[in-house]
């Protein structure tokens, strides 16, 4: 469960300061799916960075499973992200010259898992996204959709409780995008992983249980889907 309490994020000082987030508060329960919408500059990316513990709020706190993250050392935060979070990005961010398998293994390598164990888990994750046959291929050999599938496998490989997706279908055509969306929501339902998606796409947002619409650093609309 993630809880966000009165967080604000300000850049710069005094006259030159810019406030990206104003006093934002909400809760995300385990196993739910949330879409964060808003135009550019609305603060949605900033909000996600703070939720994903990649950034610290200037004011307020983020609680993960009731633990206050502002009291954690950077080592503890690193460990938390490594064990509980998975990331899917619009631009994939894969090492093109490495194999698909090596790309998926990365979070486990960072965690210090043994070679054999991490290979086993990576292959499992690739199976879940139906990319097992491409394990030995170079990442650059794949199409956009295939790459995003590998990214999802990478996000899954450490058995996360939350997956953060930043415009996951932004670089994909509609058909491929649908496939990816289905994959994400399928995993969400099957494994109970919390999904937090930042997107422009209203259709994608509609598939999520909750929506938050941001403007100028504030939440202007909160909608809960009736499912």
């Amino acid at each position: 469960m993630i809880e966000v309490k009165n967080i604000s994020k300000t850049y710069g000082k005094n006259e030159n300061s810019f406030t990206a987030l104003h006093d934002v508060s909400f809760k995300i329960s385990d196993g739910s799916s949330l879409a964060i919408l808003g135009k550019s500059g609305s603060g949605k990316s900033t909000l996600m960075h703070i939720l994903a513990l990649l950034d610290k709020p200037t004011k307020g706190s983020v609680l993960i499973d009731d633990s206050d993250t502002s009291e954690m050392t950077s080592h503890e935060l690193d460990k938390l992200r490594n064990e509980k979070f998975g990331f899917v990005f619009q631009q994939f961010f894969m090492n093109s010259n490495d194999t698909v398998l090596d790309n998926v293994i990365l979070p486990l390598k960072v965690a210090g898992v043994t070679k054999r164990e991490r290979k086993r888990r990576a292959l499992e994750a690739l199976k879940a996204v139906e990319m097992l046959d491409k394990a030995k291929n170079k990442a650059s050999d794949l199409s956009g959709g295939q790459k995003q599938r590998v990214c999802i496998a990478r996000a899954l490989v450490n058995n996360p409780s939350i997956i953060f997706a930043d415009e996951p279908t932004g670089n994909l055509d509609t058909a491929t995008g649908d496939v990816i969306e289905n994959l994400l929501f399928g995993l969400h339902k099957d494994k109970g992983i919390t999904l937090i998606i930042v997107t422009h796409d209203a259709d994608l947002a509609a598939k999520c249980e909750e929506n938050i619409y941001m403007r100028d650093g504030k939440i202007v609309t909160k909608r809960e889907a009736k499912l």
Partner: protein
Amino acid sequence: MRYIDIIATANHNLKRNKLRTILTIVAVFIGSFTITLTVGLNAGVNDYISKQLGTLGGDNVLIVTAKGMNSAPTSEPKEYNPNQSTNSTFGLTINTMNDVDVAKIKSVDKVTKVTPQLIPTVSYIQGSSDKKYQLASVNQMVDGIKVDVVAGSAPDNNSTDNQIDILPSYVSVLGFKDNTDAVGKTLTIAAKTPLGLIQTVEAKIVGVQNDSLLASGGFMINDHLTRQLYDITTEGMPDSIRNNYYAVVATISSGMTEKEITDVKNMVKDLGYNAMTVRDRIGTVSTIINAISYALIGFGAVALLAASFGVINTLFMAVQERTKEIGLMKAVGMSGGRVFILFSIEAILLGFWGSLIGMSLAYVVGSGLSNYASQTFLKDLKGFTLIEFPITYLLIVMGVVMLIAYLAGTLPARRAAKLNPIDALRYE
């Protein structure tokens, strides 16, 4: 991330851009190669010097010379001393010593004998055959010095006979069957008087000696023979020219401690002379060898400095190119510290491979040169390996190169460690 994975990842990263890695390693290799060869040369020469001269003995002799005249133009003018004997060679006037000095030095406590060092010139030598041969020089035997004989023994300064050691290269031409055969035979030595008359003396060959740095192609003779030859070459000359010595050897009573010997040395120095033990002498030669070596190593170090800029450049480019990759690694929980270690190890590996290849090639080239030298210009100097590679020196060179590489990688590694994942992963 486990350390073994960090090292494996670093190695993998270097392999990604093979050409760039190879070029950087070549730069490091050039510096390492040069330094290793120079260190090897220094080791070889110093080893020979200490082997040959260090076991030389002569612990209880002092080589005494007069304090020289300062010929440097900027020094203060020195007053003329009519009692100071001098000698001029090639227009350079050097202070020498005379019999008065000999007596003074003899009077120092614990000095048992003072022998003037004379350098007579020899016209020719003749053995049992009819042929006469030139001789580069004769070297006066110094008591207590150990000599590398292959037959017989060193000349004895206490003997009242003329004694001489010859070099192996002269054995057959002088008409002897082999080294052992030469011992006990007679050698005729001819010297010229100042008026140009040839006079000969006979000397008994008491030994055959290997050539060495000290000998430089000359034969070793005892004091008695030295005096005889010198008398010929200075026949009829006034005392002031005859009793004019570049150096004298002062023998100290045996069984004295190093400190006691130093005390005697200082007493001689207090009388106004320069005094050196054999060890001091070696020291000066070593000092010169080392000074030359350090200069050469300095050049190698400059090459290494240039190479380190190559390392810095390579790593900065790597950090730049891998910004997103670093951002992703940090997002999934890799700490800045680990990122720093990762890039530092990439730098160290560049140093490792460069120095390894540099040293290996230096070893091959150096050994080849040594062999060639032993068969050509160092043929007569036994036991002289021109270039040697003691393991500790090699390890030190490798360690230093790897350290320099690590230091070169510090700035790029820091930059990578400090990357903010948000900035690194920004969509462009």
